[in-house]
């Protein structure tokens, strides 16, 4: 009888990459519902278009690389990349913006590096950053949330949104429904005190940015569901949200700098919750050790706060995530967990 050497873990879970990705897709639903409610059908159309493109690019890349297409399409990672990018894009982004973004994400950020599991950078965020620096106008034209401005026409209907994104036969109808988001306002009115802005300017909602607070709540609900299903551990999201909370408490509460948003504002505007639960928890591009994940989250939260408060861009989730993707291997290197019965690595090295 031969004993087969199998390394631990010996108890296999019944989950695979595909079922994990499907759970994450399911968890984006509350956020997507809120986006659709507050900003119209655009996000939904964008997501469908992005997923279609992602599947086409994934198939093409796999064929070119000579890999089995069906097997890799079934892991849903391309679908997830498409959905995440679609969620991050402004609702009425023209079709070619999505095309360029998804193409970059799938072909260059993912398959150039060797496909799922080998990509050092989060594909959706690479696509987003390429779009943001290439097409600043299209990427910052956010639709005004529903019922925000008196006398503003209602949100575009489904077909209107469709023709806004795909101007076939017709010219794009209008682009007059966009307005600056709350984070934009913060950037443009740095000198103002926050109580001059909040309440006076319509872009601010009950506790975060108008409309955005509900979208972020949606992502938070989805994220907590994923946490409950143990798709990821609490370390990275807690680190990121904690760092944001602490820094905004210090600067807004303690030092009373009024032009920096309150903790609630930072939590519930922009892409905070989408980032905290759907982007930085990506198992491929984040740190893998638990301590490493915590540090990774803290660093991303701090970077977001710094760029939002003193940087050039209104929001910073994508930039912070990409910067920390660089650092993830180092974090892992310095936070290797101690295996049972072994002395800590540094103590052992010093002895030698």
């Amino acid at each position, binding site marked *: 009888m031969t004993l087969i050497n199998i390394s631990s873990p010996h108890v296999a879970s019944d989950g695979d990459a595909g079922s994990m990705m499907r759970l994450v897709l399911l968890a984006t639903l509350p956020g997507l519902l809120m986006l659709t409610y507050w900003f119209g059908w655009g996000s939904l159309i964008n997501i469908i278009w992005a997923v279609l493109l992602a599947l086409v690019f994934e198939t093409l890349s796999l064929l070119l690389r000579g890999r089995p297409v069906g097997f890799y399409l079934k892991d849903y990672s391309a679908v997830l990349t498409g959905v995440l990018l679609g969620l991050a894009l402004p609702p009425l982004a023209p079709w*070619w913006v999505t095309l*360029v973004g998804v193409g970059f994400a799938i072909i*260059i950020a993912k398959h150039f590096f060797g496909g799922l599991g080998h990509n050092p950078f989060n594909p959706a965020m690479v696509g987003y950053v*390429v779009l943001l*620096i*290439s*097409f*600043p106008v*299209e990427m910052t034209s956010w639709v005004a949330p529903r019922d925000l401005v008196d006398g503003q026409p209602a949100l575009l209907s489904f077909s209107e949104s469709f023709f806004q994104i795909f101007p076939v036969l017709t010219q794009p109808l209008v682009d007059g429904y966009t307005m600056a988001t709350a984070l934009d306002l913060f950037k443009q009115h740095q000198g103002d005190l926050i109580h001059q802005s909040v309440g006076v300017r319509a872009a601010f909602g009950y506790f975060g940015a108008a409309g955005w607070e509900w979208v972020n709540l949606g992502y938070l609900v989805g994220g907590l569901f994923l946490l409950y299903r143990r798709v990821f551990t609490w370390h990275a999201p807690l680190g990121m949200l904690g760092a944001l909370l602490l820094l905004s408490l210090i600067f807004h509460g303690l030092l009373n700098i009024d032009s920096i948003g309150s903790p609630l504002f930072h939590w519930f505007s922009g892409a905070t919750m989408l980032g905290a639960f759907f982007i930085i928890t990506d198992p491929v591009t984040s740190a893998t050790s638990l301590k490493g994940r915590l540090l990774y989250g803290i660093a991303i939260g701090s970077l977001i706060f710094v760029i939002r408060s003193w940087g050039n861009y209104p929001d910073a989730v994508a930039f912070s995530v990409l910067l920390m993707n660089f650092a993830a291997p180092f974090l892992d290197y310095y936070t290797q967990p101690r295996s049972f019965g072994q002395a800590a690595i540094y103590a052992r090295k010093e002895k030698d």
Partner: protein
Amino acid sequence: MATDSYRDLAANGLWNNNPVLVQGLGLCPLLAVTGSVVNALGLGLATTAVLTGSNIAISLARQQIPDAIRLPIFVIIIASFTSCIELLMNAYTFELYEILGLFIPLIVTNCVILGRADVCASRVRVFAAAFDGLMMGLGFTLVLVLLGSIRELLGTGALFNNMQLLLWPETANWTLRLVENYNGFLFAILPPGAFLVTGLLIAGKNLVTRYHEKRSVIRTESFE
């Protein structure tokens, strides 16, 4: 020297041992100034001129240069040629000189030039050295212009903008607007676009080389 070796020198400079695609030298100006064809061509020609000149001078003086301090001497010779080119550009192509700015004096630090001085010019006779400098410079210029045209096309939808900065005034009409109402793809003109397109060019070069190797293997096999 036989004609064969001149052919080798040309093949090496332009393709087999291309300074950018194979040796990976001179990447700093390559990445920095290739936002448009005119910038790329300007810096490429300036580098070629310096390279050819310094190769000739070093080859002529190669018996007198002591081996131990050859590098400082090479750098001084290269720096004098760079200064000449800089003054010439200042005089005749002032606007381009302003655009390229720091990257003209930085030709001194271009590894391609110092590399050729040490590997080639200080060992061979003057005609071979001059020809090698010219070919290496042209290989460098070619990649620069190719990169510049890809980035300019992707970034602005047009080719050969502002050629009058380098050439005669009528070349202002050379601008080819290939795509109407192009939105502009800033990424291609910004530094990350340079890295990406350079990587793609190197990959393309390797692909062609590998294809030819495969074909030559098949050919020799079929002869046997």
